[in-house]
């Protein structure tokens, strides 16, 4: 192994350790790691820029702009209150409906955005029913991570995988991942209702309070709502067709975002741009450059060949190894740097002789996204909800969350294990 490779491994491990320790903001750490790769001459600036996946960044930015403008219409609050009223204020039904709404919304929007939209309404509904909001919040966290797994745009790991493997387009993600996610969601909701059954009771008088809410008044701008929903629908159709149209997913997302800004006027521009999570964007940039150091020095190729030796190059064994390893790793560390490292490794496995890479990609997506449900620090949405709950005086502890969520995560990975085995190796 060359000195350059050893330097690259050193920088990568130190950066990773700082990201895990959360002593410094992960964006600063990732950017410093990436910059060190260039300063030490491990990659040139040109190579570093070449490794930054602008499709991932464009897709994230486009969707963030679309959601910021759409959220201003009040539609998400409308949907949540409408669901609570359809549930007739009954807690078990509300938990089921809000979980389904969260999962569906997360499939098309960023998970953090989804929970930021749904959690405040949940607090309010729980307050009206004089219930502890924690069962609802934990259900929404799990639903958001599971729902995000179903599509190319639902969760950053999927965005990164879709962006790196052109043949895995939006429809491929939907067709391959949504069936197993529907099964996982159904089982998870059943388990959650069982776990929290004693806490989900209220009086008929309090249920009646929910029925008095006027959801129509939550729509603050009906003209903007029509424009936003039309553009959102067009964008989703665009995602479904992007493979056939030979357009990258970022092109679709950015077209949707700027079409919406074009028809709504420039007064939304500044707010929409300012609400893009630039921290996240720079975090991705830092990671892409960081991992490029490992790719350019041959470290990734070496790791891939060792993984193949371990599984004997068998596609099934490699898929299942990736599934479980991704799930356990993603429960404890950020799944974004993990996936950023795994993508070049799986590509390398293809170069080393594994012919059918598709099950490996789906295993990575399932493991990395669903693994985030294992602990409170496993995914950004978990941390955000715990923070909001703490502000409200409801503490979601690391252990108390893990007691509920970790077994559910393992269950979801067992289901995924069976799914990958049956769908790609038996049928």
């Amino acid at each position, binding site marked *: 192994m060359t000195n350059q490779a050893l330097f690259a491994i050193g920088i990568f491990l130190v950066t990773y350790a700082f990201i895990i320790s959360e002593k410094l903001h992960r964006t600063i750490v990732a950017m410093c790691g990436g910059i060190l790769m260039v300063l030490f001459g491990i990659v040139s600036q040109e190579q570093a820029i070449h490794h930054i996946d602008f499709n991932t960044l464009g897709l994230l930015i486009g969707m963030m702009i679309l959601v910021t403008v759409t959220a201003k219409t009040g539609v998400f609050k409308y949907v949540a209150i409408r669901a609570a009223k359809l549930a007739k204020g009954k807690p078990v039904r509300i938990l089921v409906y809000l979980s389904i709404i969260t999962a569906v919304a997360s499939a098309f929007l960023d998970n953090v955005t989804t929970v930021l939209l749904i959690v405040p309404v949940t607090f309010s509904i729980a307050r009206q029913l004089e219930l502890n909001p924690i069962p609802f919040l934990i259900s929404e966290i799990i639903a958001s991570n599971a729902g995000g797994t179903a599509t190319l745009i639902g969760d950053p790991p999927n965005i990164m995988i879709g962006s790196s493997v052109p043949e895995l387009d939006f429809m491929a993600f939907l067709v391959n991942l949504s069936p197993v996610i529907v099964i996982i969601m159904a089982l998870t909701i059943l388990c959650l209702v069982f776990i929290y059954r004693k806490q989900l009771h209220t009086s008929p008088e309090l249920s009646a309070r929910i029925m008095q809410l006027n959801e129509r008044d939550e729509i603050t701008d009906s003209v903007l709502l029509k424009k936003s929903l039309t553009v959102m629908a067009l964008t989703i159709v665009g995602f479904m067709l992007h493979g056939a149209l030979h357009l990258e997913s970022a092109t679709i997302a950015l077209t949707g975002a700027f079409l919406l800004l074009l028809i709504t006027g420039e007064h939304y521009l500044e707010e929409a741009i300012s609400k893009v999570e630039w921290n996240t964007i720079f975090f991705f940039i830092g990671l892409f450059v960081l991992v490029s150091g490992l790719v350019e020095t041959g470290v990734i190729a070496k790791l891939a060949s060792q993984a193949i030796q371990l599984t004997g190059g068998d596609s099934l064994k490699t898929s299942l190894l990736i599934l479980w390893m991704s799930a356990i790793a993603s429960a404890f560390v950020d799944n974004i740097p993990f996936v950023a490292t795994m993508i070049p490794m799986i590509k390398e496995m293809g170069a080393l002789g594994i012919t059918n890479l598709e099950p490996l990609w789906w295993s990575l997506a399932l493991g990395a996204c669903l693994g985030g449900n294992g602990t409170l620090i496993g995914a950004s949405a978990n941390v955000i909800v715990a923070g909001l709950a703490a*502000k409200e005086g409801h503490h979601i502890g690391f252990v108390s969350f893990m007691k509920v969520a970790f077994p559910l995560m393992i269950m979801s990975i067992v289901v995924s294990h069976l799914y990958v085995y049956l769908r790609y190796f038996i049928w």
Partner: protein
Amino acid sequence: MLQYTFDEKMISIQERASQQDTTYVIEVKSEEMRARLKQVRQFFDENRDYTDVMFYSREDGTYEAIVREDMKNAFLIHAFRFQCLTSLRWA
């Protein structure tokens, strides 16, 4: 603690306190006051604190503002700023 008064011809406000928050049940009696209350709502809807003040409207036309305990003074100050209250003083 802040004490407030309001113009009863324009608005009526009732408080309901619980452990972590106070709920203000607000009835507006003119369109002008409705517009002012919307400004208060917009202010809190647009900030980055998602659980400070949560506004809801009810089928009977009244509004409900659920205000987190640490945001009670900020809520009253902004209600005064947008002229939903007529006076505000430290008690």
